[in-house]
């Protein structure tokens, strides 16, 4: 099997059409290639980002350690081919999306996309804030679980992790125009859900 074919197997998102080269339209000119970053630097700076992204992409805690490891193993393997034409977060998010997808497809024995437990340790000791935070957290989880795989990836990238639309498009491998439209729609839908939740009797 050629390396190119293997790479596509690992990295091609499911929504990419057959024959699609995977080159998204770019909202900016690619920057000149530079020296690939050191693995240790990437790991130190983006460990939290990768963890959070996988978590929001629906990887449940029992599988999270494996998924995080898998992302970093792929990063280690592919680092030499990372040309620095995109942000590291863009590249990492693309890998995380595919690892999360792979987990869902092959790890159906594990629950995927379950809402996180409310019993997760809060970093805020204030009980009132905990209640508010728990509700907000639940709302995000409920909303994420109503989304398709693509919508979820866009929501996590653009709204939770604040990657730009161009970066989201590049990470996920879709047209930037689609990202713009989807982000607007997702934001409106989530706002609506929050509003309904606020108005509904407790």
């Amino acid at each position, binding site marked *: 099997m050629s390396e190119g074919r293997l790479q596509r197997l690992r990295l091609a998102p499911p929504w990419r059409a057959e024959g699609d080269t995977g080159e998204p339209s770019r909202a900016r000119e690619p920057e000149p290639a530079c020296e690939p970053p*050191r693995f240790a630097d990437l*790991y130190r700076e983006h460990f939290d980002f990768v963890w959070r992204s996988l978590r929001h992409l629906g990887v449940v805690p029992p599988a999270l350690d494996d998924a995080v490891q898998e992302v970093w193993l792929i990063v280690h393997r592919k680092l030499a081919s990372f040309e620095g034409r995109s942000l590291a977060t863009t590249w990492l998010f693309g890998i995380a999306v595919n690892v999360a997808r*792979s987990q869902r497809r092959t790890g159906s024995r594990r629950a995927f996309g379950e809402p996180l437990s409310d019993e997760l340790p809060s970093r*805020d000791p204030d009980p009132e804030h905990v209640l508010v*935070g728990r509700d907000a957290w639940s709302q995000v989880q409920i909303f994420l679980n109503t989304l398709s795989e693509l919508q979820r990836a866009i929501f996590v990238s653009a709204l939770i992790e604040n990657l730009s639309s161009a970066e989201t498009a590049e990470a996920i491998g879709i047209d930037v125009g689609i990202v713009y439209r989807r982000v607007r729609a997702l934001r409106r839908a989530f*706002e609506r859900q*929050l509003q309904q939740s606020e108005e509904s009797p407790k």
Partner: protein
Amino acid sequence: MNRSETNLELALEESRRRAAPAAADRVRISELLRAQLGAAVVDGAPAPALAAAPLRVRAGRGGWVAAVAGTGVVMGTLGFLLGYGLGFRERSASPASDARGATVSSAIPPVVQSPPSPAASQPSLRETAAPLASPVPAVAAPLVPAAAPSPALARGERPRQPGRAVPGSAAGSFGQVVERLRRAHRALADGRASLALLQLEELEHFAGDTLREEREVTRILALCALGEVAAARQAATRLLASREDSIYAHRLEQSCARVGF
């Protein structure tokens, strides 16, 4: 910013906070990755075992003999236990698969036949990633370039080719190859053939000829699991051409790689 936008931003911020890893998570993953990738990669700080010793050390003749003896024991028992390897079901991802949607029962070649250890009975990748207990220095290709040339290079000796096992460190490398191959098996049995292939590729860098046949058979089965029938058959043909008496011939015949042998 109106109220609904504020609520949205607050909810997203709370979600970021809740999904963030704890310090213990980072420590745990760092340890697991360090065990797989080697020291000095994960956090820039070399692990004590590697910091104290060069990456490759020529062991005495006794170490080499022990490694050969160990290999013999393992290889001798491979045939006996062939039919009792880990079972897994190939995915029917291949359109060319004769199974046509049905799964084909096959088995992964066992790596090493030793009494089951607690680690061996645990299915998760993270649970198998613990570093080897042996203090033998890792022989994985260094992930961070060494600051100074090795004494051998300084003496003008020809550098070893990558992929060649170092005889002197064979005892350590054999254990590591076994451990890593076991991880690949587990990934494959867990349905994560891509990860298994990645781990096998990593092995290529330092395993040399150690368990080459087992690695190749595992790779073929991983290719089958990914639906890469043509590549699997090509690899199987190549393997069996060089090893006509391969003890894995029957195993391969039961996989997608069967080519009429």
